[in-house]
């Protein structure tokens, strides 16, 4: 069966809607070798910072390098885990608190590969994809730059 190793567009402008997530799930109903999906959703937290509460994150990226990094993560995940397909979406621009900025969706015949691949992919994205985020604070236009731990 042909695997979806092709170059795919990862970045979406603004938040990722729950409707988009549910449509993505629905579009896999015809792929009947799949027995397990794992979905990871990253949501914006209202952290309390020194200068105010986070109201959203404004994401930017070195897009050409980021697309390349996403491609390498996809290839490595297909190599390491028994996956039927994989989708990654990440926001650019402003994502308000409580909304979704990262959607990782992996599908496999069995659960173990799906669980492990989703964790692997999320960790790789956080460590190796040149995405930058401004945490917007309060209503006054203040912000701090986010840094992954």
């Amino acid at each position: 069966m042909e695997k979806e190793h092709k170059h795919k567009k990862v970045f979406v402008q603004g938040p990722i809607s729950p409707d988009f997530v549910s449509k993505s799930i629905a579009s896999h109903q015809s792929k009947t070798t799949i027995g397990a999906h794992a979905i990871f959703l990253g949501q914006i937290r209202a952290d309390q910072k020194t200068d105010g509460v986070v109201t959203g994150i404004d994401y930017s990226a070195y897009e050409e390098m980021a697309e390349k990094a996403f491609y390498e993560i996809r290839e490595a995940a297909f190599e390491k885990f028994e996956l039927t397909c994989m989708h990654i979406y990440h926001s650019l621009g402003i994502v308000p608190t409580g909304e979704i900025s990262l959607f990782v969706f992996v599908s496999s015949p069995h659960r173990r590969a799906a669980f492990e691949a989703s964790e692997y992919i999320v960790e790789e994205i956080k460590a190796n994809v040149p995405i930058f985020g401004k945490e917007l604070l309060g209503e006054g236009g203040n912000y701090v730059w986010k840094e992954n731990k």
Partner: protein
Amino acid sequence: MSIQVSYYGMLAEITGQANEVWVADQNLTVGDFRNQIIERYPAMREKKFKIAVDQKISQDYVSIDNASEIALLPPFAGG
């Protein structure tokens, strides 16, 4: 030689621009370039950043003589 240099995130705020053309001598390494950057923008000394040469994060010993694009990347924040 001249190289296209891009600054991302907080680094673009320090330099006041998203990109510029860097004129440098031959035999330049990433480490030499880092020193030149800090000389031109002293506030960079306080910041953590990585240097990508043609979209690949590169160590200080790497030569950038044939590079077409250099990017300065602050800590990543994806997810």
